């Protein structure tokens, strides 16, 4: 999708020029008020840009101009076939849960291989709620119904605005894999707004970072998360992470561990049953989960100790912490340790160290 959009929103000047190759899930990330929801509204056609151009290119090569201020094109909302899950509750109060779902379902029966009604109801565990009135739903239940309703529009493109924010861990764990499948199984690309880095790393391959209405960065989730600082991403320091691209070399089926080669270094990590040797995967490693040792530990449960070279040392004066950038045979890895350890271990630039990563820091879902 080719986005080139300008729009004045009160004090905020939204101005985004970006090619979004939406094969799969693109995260839209940025601090509150940076213009994420406004951008989605412009893509759906609910609002009209002051100027610019908006062109949709599907995976199959289909190209549609949704908006073009120079030629005066402005395709109406309902013809764009974009599924949009609003940030706030927008269920229809005059319809039951079932009525709300069928509203989308009936109007969008496009192809036989698409998501079925039951798929969606099952995935979001809505069968016991179908006859409820919408006022009788809890916050999380509303959120799930809204998500289901949006999915049932079987759109060309799905825009989800913080879809999981009201859900508890259990529900998130159940809904996330379902969302993960959508792009590959049902060929529905997703633009996903969230404040949650876990969701970003798990769901998305690419990320567009906004700040005050402007594009800050766009690229592979791994490289953006590794290369931008927490300030640039608008996240907490201790959430700063590295994303490493690796290939599974071996699966240990008994202990459910995957041996993963990243730049010829081996990581041993918990794995989900679907992982296969040869598969390439990306590892999100939080800097705070990476410890440093001068020697390779032997009798501990910490399974991963990889040799690295210290390339950068950033002491955070007003905090107890320091951040290390490590070079691991060409890949870059961040570590977050206390300034006390930094001193004690007498770490210096160019020094060889072992990065310690506990396997249990990874959930199989990261694979």
């Amino acid at each position, binding site marked *: 999708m080719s986005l080139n959009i300008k729009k004045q929103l009160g004090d905020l000047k939204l101005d985004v020029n970006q090619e979004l190759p939406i094969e799969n899930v693109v995260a839209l990330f940025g601090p509150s008020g940076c213009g994420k929801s406004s951008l989605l509204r412009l893509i759906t056609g*609910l609002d009209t840009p002051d100027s610019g151009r908006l062109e949709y290119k599907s995976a199959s090569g289909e190209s549609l101009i949704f908006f073009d201020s120079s030629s005066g094109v402005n395709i109406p909302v*309902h013809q764009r076939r974009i*599924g949009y899950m*609003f940030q706030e509750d927008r269920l*229809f109060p*005059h319809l039951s849960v079932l009525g709300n779902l069928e*509203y989308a379902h009936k109007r*969008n029966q496009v192809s036989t291989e698409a998501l079925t009604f039951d798929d969606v109801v099952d995935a979001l565990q809505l069968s016991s709620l179908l006859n409820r*009135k919408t006022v009788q739903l809890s916050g999380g239940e509303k959120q799930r119904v809204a998500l289901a309703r949006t999915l049932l529009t079987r759109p060309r493109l799905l825009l989800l605005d913080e879809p999981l924010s009201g859900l508890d861990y259990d529900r998130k764990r159940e809904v996330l894999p379902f969302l993960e499948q959508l792009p590959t199984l049902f060929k529905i690309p997703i633009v996903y707004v969230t404040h949650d880095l876990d969701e970003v790393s798990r769901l998305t391959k690419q990320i567009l970072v906004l700040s005050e209405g402007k594009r800050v960065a766009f690229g592979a989730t791994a490289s953006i998360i590794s290369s931008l600082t927490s300030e640039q991403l608008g996240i907490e320091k201790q959430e700063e992470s590295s994303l490493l691209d690796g290939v599974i070399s071996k699966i240990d089926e008994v202990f459910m561990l995957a041996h993963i080669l990243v730049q010829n270094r081996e990581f041993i990590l918990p794995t989900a049953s679907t992982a296969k040797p040869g598969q390439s995967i990306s590892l999100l490693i939080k800097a705070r989960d990476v410890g440093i040792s001068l020697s390779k530990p032997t009798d501990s449960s910490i399974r991963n100790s990889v040799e690295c070279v210290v390339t950068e040392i950033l002491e955070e004066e007003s905090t107890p912490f320091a951040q290390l950038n490590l070079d691991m045979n060409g890949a870059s890895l961040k570590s977050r340790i206390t300034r006390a350890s930094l001193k004690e271990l007498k770490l210096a630039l160019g020094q060889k160290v072992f990065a310690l990563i506990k396997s249990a820091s990874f959930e199989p879902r990261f694979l």
Partner: protein
Amino acid sequence: MIIDLSSLWLTIKLALIVTALLLFLATPFALWLAHTKSRLKPLLEAVIALPLVLPPTVLGFYLLIAFNPNAAFGKTWMKITGDTLAFSFEGLVIASLIYSLPFMVQPIQSSFESLGRKPYETALSLGAKPLDAFLTVIFPLSFRGFLTACVLTFAHTIGEFGVVLMVGGNIPQETKVISIAIYEHVETLEYAQAHILSGILLLMSFLILLSVYAYNKRYRINVG
């Protein structure tokens, strides 16, 4: 004592036609008024309410002037339909449309305004075409406004007789509505007949209104 019920049917026919026509005419207008940012809006709103201000017979008098086949409006109508407007059922309908317009427009517009754009937006984003979105979302969510509008229009058209008398000419089967019949009885001191006809009219209207409201109660949306 002869009770002429033909006037009752004529009245109900008139009220139904006027209510139905106004529903179609007033709705797009109310929609436009509710969402326009035009500077003309207050002007139009004021103009719509104006016919109310004139006493019905006086409004009827001005309508007669307009209906005159030599006046612009009457002439145009004559050209198009080959018929005069005054003293015809069509004329009654037009007069009632003008007279009752504000009763239809205002409650509907008011409910559109309080509904806001969100439900409509949501429906579009779910793939509904504008008309579809209107019928399946805006209409049911503003149902109470439509109901109020229709009840006021319907009841008012039934009860109206000043305008009707003036432009209708009281032609049996054609323009002699029940309100005129009751009025006649009162004027000629036939109070018994007046009571009976009023009773019938009230009872019928009451039953119609009651069933409408009972239905509305069952139907009612729980907005919290």
